[in-house]
Structures are given as structure tokens and as C-alpha cells.
């Protein structure tokens, strides 16, 4: 069927900020949808609150709304833009839920918007647990026995009937938020109440446990003619019990016989036919290897993390095809690389794909490293190899956690077999690494299977790696025999890891193997749905089958797996670099291993190498392709870490030189330069042991900011107030050594933080607008809200910031983009750090200021001058406020306070004519929204009591009822702010604060942590706020901004406005 003519303008809803369980795979799918529909001639109205996405680039859609994703805002946008169709199944769970709300509330019918792709009732058939169960029953497809309940009492009854353990699954949530496996009634009560609170409809499912069963997934695509194809069969190596987002997976299925695969396919077809999805659907099954029973676990009638993985694993762009099918096309009209059209698609290929998750437990003090039915991973990598061993080892070295092989992680190799087997009892993020050492210690495949439910075939493969490694270790200090080296490379052992095993330099291993002709070769993954496209993966198990062109070309190194501190923002930059290069007529070569991203979309670059970002892999591609240079400044810390070694190996780095990057990261060199330039920095020092640390502390004076060197996202960063805290910090710091010291800076209390992203050409620099942080110094810039352009900074400080930025750019000979962080204290501007690379604010600045930073930076790197880019000082009639989104709901055991260590996974942007409105919008987008009336609870630490007074007065003036804990109440009362007393739990009076939160009597919580003494004291308040979704603020700065936002919002809600309109209103001052 040809495209639908009854539709002209299509609305696409994005998935909002990156959170655990909903990451940049939806930018990938949404961007594909925009591309697909625009190529068919439709107008696109796009809504997403996440500014770091490619999909919200003003060029991707006709009308782009960076607005909060809620019913009210969406209704306004529909009213203003009058789209005639809504494509609901490409924006993750968020987009799907919103679409379903819009349908139910009658908004769609009121404005004549029809849903394409999937019917509103189909969404419910797939997502509502009760309806889904009924549908499966009708189709004769088995499910785990279960019942849906709405309260804890019924949950107990059902669990008693099914027998423990049981699984609790909240309806309409993503990443399994609030769910879990429980073994007894106590655990059930805890998890059930959490799950009911997490569910949009207060519904949970109590389900028979299928722990230890095989977990199998299919990605199915259906068109309007009811033609169905299976894109990919995915086998989860981790069995049922570990959330599929945390599971180690392979595609195609490696140990599943064709009879079972055929049966799963048949079930899947029956399901998608009944649910009537047009486009992609993910279906998860569990198979009991003891009885052969197959049950369907869940379906996702939308693009998903799995569909992104399946797309990259097979070269079948599911989102792109789904969008085209939703527009009325059918599979027999879309091309297929095998000749002909997609209705003939079958999965094929002669390679193995491995997906491995990336976690961030180290970021959450108190979080338990335990995997279950709730997803914990913040990112993932995908690797492709000719055999399982090669693909698996490539996945491990893609993770960028400092490991290049499976052995010798942490102290596992020093543990006894008993201990290791004990550690394997529960699945954790370290499971494969522990299993590896257990094999080394002689554990049998069968015992490990009994412990982990990982199928023996996989364990045997890993065992063979261990055996090979033991053989290699015999040659420690010597040269590995040629045939052994060859075998090791075919088994996927990294040069770096072999160097570690043998105690020789990596370069030596490399020289040895190249001399023997053992070099990486490449093979293609052909792309379906378009003509003549492919991407590439390396192998040591075959000849090179990939041709190179003689064109001018440049290589861009991507950002690797998402993790906290390194996310979608860097992918955004890499994608823009590729676009800019393409515009300049240069062939682009992208290297990345993150399947969720737009940078690994087949058409972002001319040539995509789906490869780990390691020196070995990058150098191999460089040698093959011989590009004129490599861009390392867009992929975050990942490629920067490689820059020196690459440069040493003769690679030409484009833009700022690696030496200057190094200078900026080297505290000593940088400080000397700053002293020479006369730019102030907080006093600082370095220490590699406690004595040195105490010495530095004496010299500078407390409070201090301490951190390990060379980290991103402030890992291990803390504010330290006295000797005792410093001692504790040094004692707990792992791996500090003279070459890896801890860095100690004076902590500027009550300082306003600001930062500037600049374009520079080595001589000149351009700052589109300075950013001012809401939270004061001490909160990691990634977690702090910020306003752009600045709100309170006086012109002279902005002037100083721009001036310092220009001078630093010149001194560091920055070519491309740079980011400098500032603190303003005592009327003085200090430089905190300079990063001669793209920062995570690049997309934010680009969108608020309408300056495509990454594209322009790429042009500068290619040799253009800043003066030639026609950039002028801009005047804005709007303010953008970025707010960070934190994953505390996924880590219920962690105290949700902000600090110098970054922990946010994503961000949202609020745009409005004034700061207050923009802040309110940003909070609305980050959720839960600020209240406009009601009760505010204030409980602040002593040192914040003075600061909170003004905000409290304003809340009172706005008619808010104020409740406060004793100390805060006394202070407020003594200043004439009327307020009522609330009880802390330890005061043993009911109702206490948590009771009031539970009974929804409190609508906003302002609770600043008191520092080290009382942190344990009141973290339950903040935890309760998260659980019951009450907005909470942990800094007085946020309280001030919030009250301003509420006040302005009550004067009139900020209207929705397209990014294109904001941009048109920006004026230039030559």
C-alpha cells in the first residue's frame, strides 16, 4: 500500500530525560522516525523535554517543542499545531503512556488526531496486565500464573496461593521500577507497597516465579496487511530473574533448537496479530529447560532497548521501518539487501552479537550490587565477532571500566573457590568476572550452571578462555609462541590484556603480532530497508572483506557505553561532527560500540565501525582507512583517554593537541599556567598518602574538595570539613599512588558556579552565552540546575568569564570546542577547571542559543577561522533552565542528596520568557512538578537556616501553609513566619513527617542534609519523598528558585513555543 494521504502532519512524542531503563535508544528510534516520515513528505511536530537529543535538533522536525511531557502541555501543543496523526510507539514507555492518556482523556478525538502505528486500545492490551492476560488466554498462550491486585492485603493472599518466591510487577512502569522478586511475606509487603506507589494506575501483578528459566526475546515487525517478519532472536545468557536490561545477551540464539524458535515465532505472530501493532514489537518468553514449558512474560508494542539492540545486531532499522509502516507502507514496498523487498526478510548472518550492560553501583554509596527484576544498568555495549569468544571479549573491552579481559578483576583472583561460589549465589554486576575466576580455581561447568543458570555451553566457552589464559600465563615475562598468540587473538584476547598477562608492553605485543601478519580484518553487516548500506565489525578469524575509498576522510571516535557523567550529550556531539564532515564533502568514519545511539545508526556516517574504543581497535581501523585525522574531543572522556597513545602511534589528532588536553588535565601544569596568566584558582594541592593530605589541608584550610585524579563525572569527589573526614576519605580511596594522587582544592563555600562553552580556533574564542548554576559550588555541575543566559551574575563577572575563556583558549591553543567551569565567591571569579573538549552542556547551549556548537567546532578543526563563521553576540528574549534527572527511585536504599559526585542520568530543559517560568517548566519536566498551592515542609540544617528565611517568607506570602521541624520552626517563628510543627521519626510522635507525606498532606519538601552528623538522621524524609513522588529540594538555592518559579507561574503559565520560534526571536549584535 502506498503512504497514507489522509495524514499531513504527524506528532512524535519523545521519551524525555535519560533514566535507567529508558536511555538514548529512544533518541535513536525517534530520530529514525523523523527521518522516515519526513522522507515520505510528512510534516513533523516533535515533543521532547530532553535537550541532549538529536531528535530535538531544530532541523530534525518542522516544529520542535522542548516542553514537559505531560497531558496539559501535550494538549496545548496539539491545540496550537493541530497535527492530524500521532505516532505513539517510538518514544519508549513515556511516549506510549502519554499517547494512551491523550486518547483516554478525549484530547485526540476533540482535535481530530488519529493514532497511527498502534491503536490506543492495543496499547492497553499490551500494557495493562489484566487485559494482556485475557488476550493471552484467548490465544491459548501460557503465562506465568498470576493475579493483578491493587493493595497489599490481596497481594499477600495471592502470594500464599502461588507459593513463594513470587515476582511483583507494577503495571505501566519501565525498567521494572518498583518491582522485584520476593521470598517471604515481609519482603512482599515492602515491595508490593513500593510497586503500587510506582504504578501509574496503582496496580501490581503477583506472579509465579520462573527464576532460572531461559529468557528468550523476539523482535517482530508487522505491517497493515498483516504480514509479519521476525527481525531477531535474542537469547539472554543470564536466565530469568535478571532484568533483560541487565542481562548479558547474544543474538542470534545460540543454544536454542529450531523447533523452539519456530514455536516462539508462531506465538509471537499470534500475539502481534491479536494486538494489531503496526511496526515493531518485542516479545519476551521464558522457557523451562526441565519441562519445555514456554510462557510469555511481556510484550512491548513499541520500539525498545531490545529493538535498538536488534536493529544494530541485524542491520534492520526497526524504528525506521516501523515509522514507514505506520505511514501506510507495507513490507513489500521497502527494499531488502538480499534483493527484493522486506516481506522476504529472514534473520541471517555469520556472526555473533553480544550485548553487555554497564552499571554504576560505585556511584551510589549504600546501593547494593544485586541484579533482579528491576533494571539497574545505566548503559550497554554491543560487540560483533565471528565466534562467541571473540564477541564476548570485545564486549568486555568495550565497557571502559579499565578491564580489557575477564580475569583479575578486583580481588576475585585472590579469593578461595568457596568464597567465589558464595559470591555467585546472587546475580551481581560482577558475575561473569567472578565466574571466570571460579573456573580458574577449578569450578566445574555443571556446578556453575546450578549456581547461575547460565547454560553450560556458555560456561564451557568461558572455561576455554580461562584454560587458554592459564597457558598464556606460563609465558609471563617471555614472548608468547607464535601459534599461541595467533590462537589468543582468534579467541578475542585484547593486546592490552595479553600485555597485562605477560608483563610486557602492549606495543610489544602489537609489534609481535603485526610481524606475524595477525591483524584485524573486517566484515560487513548489511542494512535492510535501504539500498546498499552496511556497517562493519572486526575479527581475527577471517580475511578482510571491506574496501576503502580514496576520498578525503576523517574519523570520529564515539563515547562508548552510557554511564553517569558520560551520556547522550557526547553522542549528540559526535553525530553533529559526522554531519558537518559530510557537509564539507569529507567521508566520515565513526567508531563506537553503544547500540543505543544515533551515532551508530547506519546513515549517520559514511562508514560505521561497530567496535570497542581501545587503542588496538582504533589503530587497526586507522591503519586500514588512513584518514587525514581523528576527532577525539566529542566523545567525552573515552576517546580522550586514547588520545596520547594514538598520537604516540603516529595518529593525527584534529583540533586541540593531545599535549594541551593533557596540560589541562594535569593539575600541576595547569596551575603553573594559571599562575603565569594571573587567573585566580582555588588553592590546591595533591597527595598520595595521608600525611601529604593533612599537610595540604593545613596549608589551604578547610573545607576542602577532594577527588581522585583523571575522572569524569566527579567520581569519588567529596567535600571534607575536618581532619577526621579527610582521614576517612584517604583510607577509603582505592588505588591512590604517586602516579594516581588525590587532588585537594579549597572548597569555596556559598560560591555561585558558572560555566562557559566556547568555540575557539587557536587565536579567538566565542561564547554564545554563559551558564549560571542554581545550586552553589559543591554540587556537581552535572547534577546542578542551571540557567542560560545567566540570571543573577553581574555584567562584570560575565565579562571576566568571557575574558578568561578567551585567554585560556588562546593559551591552550584550543581548536574546536572547550568548556571552563567557574566559581564566583567574594566578588571574585575563580577558574575551577578547563576542559579542552566538548562538555555535556554542548547540546544545551546549542539549542538555547541556536549555535550548532559541535558542527562549527568541526569546521574549525578542519581549518576554518572563527571570524569566518559569522558569529555575533546574541540577545535572548528567553531563558533556558536545565534540570538534572536523578535515578534515586531505582536505588531506594541510597540517600537522595546532591553532592560533588555526579549521579544524574539525564536532563530536561525548560524554555520560557523569564527565569522563574523556565525553572518551573524544568521542574515540571523533570517531575514531580512543583505545587502551586498547599503545604510546604521545611527542615534545614543549621547552616542553611539563615538562607531559607527569605524563601519561607515568600512561600507564606503566596499562601502556602508551612510546616517545619523543631529547629527550623523556632527560627522561622522567631522571624515572624507562621508555621506549624512536624515531627521527625525519632521524636516518636504520630503523625510524623512520613505519615504526613504518605497521606499527601505535604506538597513540597525542602530538606537540606546537615552534613556528616545528621545525614543518617533525616534521609528517610527524602526517601519518602521519592517513594510518594512528592517534589523535594535539598538546597536553599533550589528553594529560592522554586518559590520564584511558583510565584511567576501563578501569574500565568508559560505558553508552549516551538524551538524554531525561540530561535527566530534571537537578535544579533554585530
Amino acid at each position: 500500500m502506498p503512504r497514507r494521504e489522509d495524514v499531513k502532519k504527524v506528532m512524535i512524542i519523545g521519551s524525555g530525560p535519560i533514566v535507567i531503563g529508558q536511555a538514548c535508544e529512544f533518541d535513536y528510534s525517534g530520530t529514525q522516525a523523523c527521518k522516515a516520515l519526513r522522507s515520505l513528505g510528512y510534516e513533523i511536530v516533535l515533543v521532547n523535554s530532553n535537550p541532549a537529543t538529536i531528535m530535538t535538533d531544530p532541523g530534525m522536525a518542522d516544529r520542535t517543542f522542548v516542553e514537559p511531557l505531560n497531558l496539559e502541555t501535550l494538549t496545548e501543543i496539539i491545540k496550537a499545531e493541530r497535527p492530524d496523526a500521532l505516532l505513539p510507539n517510538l518514544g519508549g514507555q513515556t511516549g506510549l503512556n502519554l499517547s494512551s492518556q491523550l486518547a483516554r482523556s478525549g484530547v485526540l478525538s476533540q482535535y481530530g488526531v488519529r493514532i497511527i502505528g498502534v491503536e490506543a486500545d492495543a496499547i492497553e492490551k499490551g500494557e495493562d496486565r489484566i487485559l494482556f492476560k485475557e488476550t493471552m488466554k484467548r490465544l491459548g498462550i501460557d503465562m506465568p500464573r498470576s493475579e493483578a491486585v491493587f493493595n497489599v492485603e490481596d497481594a499477600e493472599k495471592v502470594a500464599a496461593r502461588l507459593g513463594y518466591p513470587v515476582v511483583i510487577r507494577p503495571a505501566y512502569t519501565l525498567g521494572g521500577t518498583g518491582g522485584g522478586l520476593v521470598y517471604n511475606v515481609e519482603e512482599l509487603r515492602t515491595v508490593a507497597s513500593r510497586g503500587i506507589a510506582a504504578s501509574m494506575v496503582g496496580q501490581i501483578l503477583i506472579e509465579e516465579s520462573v527464576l532460572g528459566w531461559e529468557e528468550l526475546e523476539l523482535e517482530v515487525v508487522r505491517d497493515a496487511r498483516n504480514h509479519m517478519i521476525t527481525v531477531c532472536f535474542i537469547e539472554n545468557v543470564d536466565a530469568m530473574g535478571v532484568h533483560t536490561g541487565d542481562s548479558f545477551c547474544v543474538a542470534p540464539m545460540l543454544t536454542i533448537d529450531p523447533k523452539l524458535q519456530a514455536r516462539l515465532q508462531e506465538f509471537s505472530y499470534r500475539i502481534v496479530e491479536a494486538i494489531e501493532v503496526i511496526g515493531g514489537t518485542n516479545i519476551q518468553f521464558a522457557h523451562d529447560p526441565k519441562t519445555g514449558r514456554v510462557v510469555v512474560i511481556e510484550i512491548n508494542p513499541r520500539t525498545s532497548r531490545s529493538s535498538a539492540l536488534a536493529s544494530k545486531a541485524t542491520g534492520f532499522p526497526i524504528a525506521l521501518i516501523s515509522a514507514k509502516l505506520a505511514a501506510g507502507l507495507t513490507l513489500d514496498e521497502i527494499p531488502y539487501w538480499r534483493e527484493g523487498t522486506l516481506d522476504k526478510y529472514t534473520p541471517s548472518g555469520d556472526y555473533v552479537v553480544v550485548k553487555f550492560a554497564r552499571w554504576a553501583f560505585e556511584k551510589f554509596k549504600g546501593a547494593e550490587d544485586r541484579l533482579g527484576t528491576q533494571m539497574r544498568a545505566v548503559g550497554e555495549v554491543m560487540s560483533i565477532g565471528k565466534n562467541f569468544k571473540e564477541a564476548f571479549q570485545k564486549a568486555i573491552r568495550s565497557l571502559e571500566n579499565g578491564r580489557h579481559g575477564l580475569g583479575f578483576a578486583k580481588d576475585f583472583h585472590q579469593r578461595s573457590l568457596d568464597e567465589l561460589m558464595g559470591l555467585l549465589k546472587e546475580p551481581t554486576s560482577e558475575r561473569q568476572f567472578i565466574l571466570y575466576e571460579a573456573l580458574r580455581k577449578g569450578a566445574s561447568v555443571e556446578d556453575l550452571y546450578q549456581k547461575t543458570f547460565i547454560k553450560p555451553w556458555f560456561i564451557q566457552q568461558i572455561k576455554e578462555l580461562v584454560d587458554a589464559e592459564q597457558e598464556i600465563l606460563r609465558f609471563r615475562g617471555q614472548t608468547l609462541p607464535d601459534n599461541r598468540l595467533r590462537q589468543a587473538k582468534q579467541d578475542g584476547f585484547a593486546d592490552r590484556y595479553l600485555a597485562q598477562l605477560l608483563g610486557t608492553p602492549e606495543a610489544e605485543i602489537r609489534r609481535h603480532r603485526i610481524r606475524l601478519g595477525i591483524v584485524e580484518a573486517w566484515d560487513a553487516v548489511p542494512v535492510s530497508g535501504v539500498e546498499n548500506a552496511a556497517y562493519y565489525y572486526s575479527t581475527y578469524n577471517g580475511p578482510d572483506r571491506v574496501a576503502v575509498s580514496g576520498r578525503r576522510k576523517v574519523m570520529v571516535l564515539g563515547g562508548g557505553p552510557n554511564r553517569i557523567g558520560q551520556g547522550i550529550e557526547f553522542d549528540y556531539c559526535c553525530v553533529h561532527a559526522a554531519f558537518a564532515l559530510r557537509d564539507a564533502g569529507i567521508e566520515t568514519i565513526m567508531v563506537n560500540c553503544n547500540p543505543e545511539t544515533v551515532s551508530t545508526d547506519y546513515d549517520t556516517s559514511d562508514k560505521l565501525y561497530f567496535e570497542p574504543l581501545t587503542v588496538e581497535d582504533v589503530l587497526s581501523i586507522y591503519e586500514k582507512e588512513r584518514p587525514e585525522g581523528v576527532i577525539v574531543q566529542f566523545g567525552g572522556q573515552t576517546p580522550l583517554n586514547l588520545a596520547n597513545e594514538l598520537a604516540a602511534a603516529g595518529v593525527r589528532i584534529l583540533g586541540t593537541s593531545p599535549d594541551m588536553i593533557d596540560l589541562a588535565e594535569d593539575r600541576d601544569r595547569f596551575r603553573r599556567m594559571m599562575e603565569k596568566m594571573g587567573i585566580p584558582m582555588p588553592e590546591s594541592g595533591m597527595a598520595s598518602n595521608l600525611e601529604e593530605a593533612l599537610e595540604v589541608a593545613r596549608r589551604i584550610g578547610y573545607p576542602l574538595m577532594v577527588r581522585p585524579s583523571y575522572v569524569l563525572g566527579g567520581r569519588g569527589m567529596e567535600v571534607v570539613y575536618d581532619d577526621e573526614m579527610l582521614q576517612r576519605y584517604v583510607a577509603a580511596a582505592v588505588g591512590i599512588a604517586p602516579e594516581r594522587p588525590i587532588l585537594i582544592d579549597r572548597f569555596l563555600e556559598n560560591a555561585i558556579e558558572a560555566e562557559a562553552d566556547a568555540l575557539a580556533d587557536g587565536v579567538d574564542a566565542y561564547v554564545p552565552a554563559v551558564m549560571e548554576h542554581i545550586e552553589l559550588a559543591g554540587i556537581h555541575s552535572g547534577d546542578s540546575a542551571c540557567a542560560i543566559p545567566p540570571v543573577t551574575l553581574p555584567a562584570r563577572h560575565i565579562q571576566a568569564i568571557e575574558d578568561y575563556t578567551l585567554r585560556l583558549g588562546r593559551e591552550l591553543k584550543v581548536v574546536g570546542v572547550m568548556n571552563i567551569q567557574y566559581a564566583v565567591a567574594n566578588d571574585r571569579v575563580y577558574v575551577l577547571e578547563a576542559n579542552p573538549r566538548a562538555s555535556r552542556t554542548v547540546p544545551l547551549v546549542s539549542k538555547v542559543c541556536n549555535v550548532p556548537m559541535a558542527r562549527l567546532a568541526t569546521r574549525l578543526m578542519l581549518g576554518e577561522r572563527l571570524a569566518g563563521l559569522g558569529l555575533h553576540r546574541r540577545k535572548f528574549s528567553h531563558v533556558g533552565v536545565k534540570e538534572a534527572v536523578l535515578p534515586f527511585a531505582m536505588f531506594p536504599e541510597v540517600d537522595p542528596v546532591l553532592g560533588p559526585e555526579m549521579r544524574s542520568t539525564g536532563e530536561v530543559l525548560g524554555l520560557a520568557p523569564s527565569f522563574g517560568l523556565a525553572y518551573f517548566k524544568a521542574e515540571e519536566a523533570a517531575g514531580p512538578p512543583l505545587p502551586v498551592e498547599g503545604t510546604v515542609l521545611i527542615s534545614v540544617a543549621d547552616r542553611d537556616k539563615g538562607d531559607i528565611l527569605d524563601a519561607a517568607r515568600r512561600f507564606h506570602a503566596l499562601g502556602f501553609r508551612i510546616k517545619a521541624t523543631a529547629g527550623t520552626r523556632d527560627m522561622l517563628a522567631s522571624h515572624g513566619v507562621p508555621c506549624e510543627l512536624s515531627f521527625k521519626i525519632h521524636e516518636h510522635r504520630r503523625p510524623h513527617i512520613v505519615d504526613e507525606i504518605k497521606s499527601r498532606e505535604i506538597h513540597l519538601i525542602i530538606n537540606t542534609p546537615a552534613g556528616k552528623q545528621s545525614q543518617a538522621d533525616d534521609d528517610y524524609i527524602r526517601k519518602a519523598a521519592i517513594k510518594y513522588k512528592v517534589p523535594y529540594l535539598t538546597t536553599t538555592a533550589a528553594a529560592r528558585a522554586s518559590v520564584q518559579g511558583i510565584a511567576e507561574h501563578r501569574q500565568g503559565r508559560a505558553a508552549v513555543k516551538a524551538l524554531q520560534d525561540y530561535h527566530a526571536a534571537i537578535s544579533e549584535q554585530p
Partner: protein
Amino acid sequence: MKAILALEDGTVYGGEGFGARCTARGEVCFNTSMTGYQEILTDPSYKGQIVTMTYPLIGNYGVNVEDIESWQPHVGGLVIRELAPLHSNWRADEPLGDYLLRHGIPGIQGVDTRALTKRLRVRGALKGVISTEGIADEDALEQARSWHGLAGVDYVREVTHPNDFVWEDASSANFRLATAETTGNPRQVRDPLPPADIPIVAYDFGIKYNILRRLRQRGFQVRVVPAHTPAADALAHRPAGIFLSNGPGDPAALGYAVQAVRDLIPTGIPIFGICLGHQILGLAMGGRTFKLKFGHRGGNQPVKNLESGQVEITSQNHGFAVDPASLPPEIVVDRINLNDQTVEGMRHRQRPIFCVQYHPEASPGPHDTTSLFDQFRQTIEKS
């Protein structure tokens, strides 16, 4: 155990041997299915062929007694990239290597099967020799070149059952395993079968068990008869329908079968043919067959039904095809292969006779086309 694969074009691949220690000749062909090696090994249509699997990891789920497609494996040899040292599947009974050894079939691993497949795609199927007993390359090449090949050779008599019998489903797995919880051996559990109320005769030219399973599932009582059974003997069973099975090799070498079918056509009894059965029908109705340069093998052959416009993804395994120009006017070509436009299905304008070149029972392969068995039943019920 060192092993070699020698091709008539002079190429020799080295590798590691597994399975039996011997030397075997055959036509080297490839299969692109990512799974399903056991079904391929036991498919009688592969008689006389050495099969290369393009997927690199083979043997991962072992071999079981239920998923066989005939009484024994028939391939001449197996060429793969990597053999699993250990299998993981709840239904597995033995490792692939042991199974091949038990049946005297040689295997070679460590071959760049992609490169080999590419060669076969360019050159067409090649004669080859696989040896795991250390013969010299020149010797192997000589043996490959001197082999007679498939054309004109009757392989059917080597794979057909010697005596007739009635198919009982109990001995083999049903594709649609039971979905309910069970007691006893779960591997033996099957969905209930309908009563077997329509008697048919199935000519066994190398019939796949999954065809028999599908026929039984549709309520046929299936009498399997040897390939050389004359029409009169088949009719003595008083069948309501005649089924002509798949099988190996060149249909032109099967004069006796063509004659039997020629005798059956005028009786008016409905006839349904698959693969070799389709080719025999073509010959019996006066057409000709020829050898394809590139045989159709694997689970993703696109076939267009010219009457409905529907495209089906089919599983196929054949090296010969019916020449459409040779067919009399009463025969309609109703299906073609979209890759090379060759005949994939025919029907008789007046008589209840139809056939397809592909495998609608699909084991392994997609299950797009199983309704042909229903069509056969409806045809019988109507006549």
C-alpha cells in the same frame, strides 16, 4: 585429526576433522539457516551432497532423537566453521560429533565457510571430497574431479524405506509441543491429534518425517510406500489422495516413479507433490526438468503466489527445476521464485492435482506456508 575439503575447481580447504574417519564424495552446497543442522543432516534430499553451514557456530544444542527427519542422516559430509565442544539443550541426547561418527559421516571444522559459500555462489554447486583420514590434496582433487556427480543418478532408491508402513506419530516429536504443564517425561508430551479419517498413500522418495507429522496432524491416515511402488499397488490401499514426497537428486533418473504417477493421474484421485514430488509430477505430465546452476537451499527463498499476489518465505532444498516452457497447456504455473523466476508451484486446470517446489512443512524454516496441507485435505473432501 586433520581434515581437508577438496573441490573440483582445485581449491583445497584445511581444517580439523570430526565425526567419522573416512573420505566421502558429493556435491558441495551451502545452507544459510542459522539453526537446524540436525534436520538438514537427516533430510534425505541431501543424499549425495556435502553441506556447508554458513552460520559459524554449529552443534550448540546437540542432537536429539525427536528432531530427525528420517531414519538416518544422509549428507555425505558436513563443513563448518566451529563445532561446539559442549552442547546445552534440555532435549539433547548426544553431541553432534558423536552422532556423525556413529553414522560414518565425516565432518570438517575450521573452514572459512563464508569464503566457501561465496565461491559456491559464484561457481554454482561444485563436486567435492571431504577426507578426515589424511589423504593427499592431489588425491582428493582427483577423486572430486572423477566423481560422476548428481545428474542422471538415482539416489532415491538409497533413501526410500524398503517396505510400506502406516505412519504413527508417537515415535517422533510434534512441532507444536504441548503448552500445558505435564507429568511424566515432558519430551513425550504432544498436543492431541485429530482422528485419522482420510486414508492416503504417500510415495516415499526420501520423505521427511515432518511432512508425515503435518499430514497426520491434518487427520490423514498415511500409508507410506516405497518409491518403486507401481500405481496399481498404491491403488490397492484404496487411498483418497496421493502424496508425492521430496527426495534427493535428479528426477530424470526416476523413470519408474514418473511412470507410476503417469498411471495415477487419470484415476482422478487428488495428488499433492512437494519438491522432488513436484518435479516428478512435472515429468509425468509431459514436462522436462533441468539442473539449476545455483540450487535453492535455505530457509529464506521468496516465492510469489501468482494468483493471490502473496509472497511467502519458504524453506527449500533442490538443485533441479521444472522447465515451464515444456509444460502442456492444462498445467498452470501458479508460483514462482522471486530470485530467479523459476517454477515453484503448479496446478492442473481440470484435475485435483497441485504441487510446490518448496517445503511447506519447513523443518527447519519459516512456517508461512503450512496451509497447503489444509488445501490438500479440502481438495480431497471436495472430490
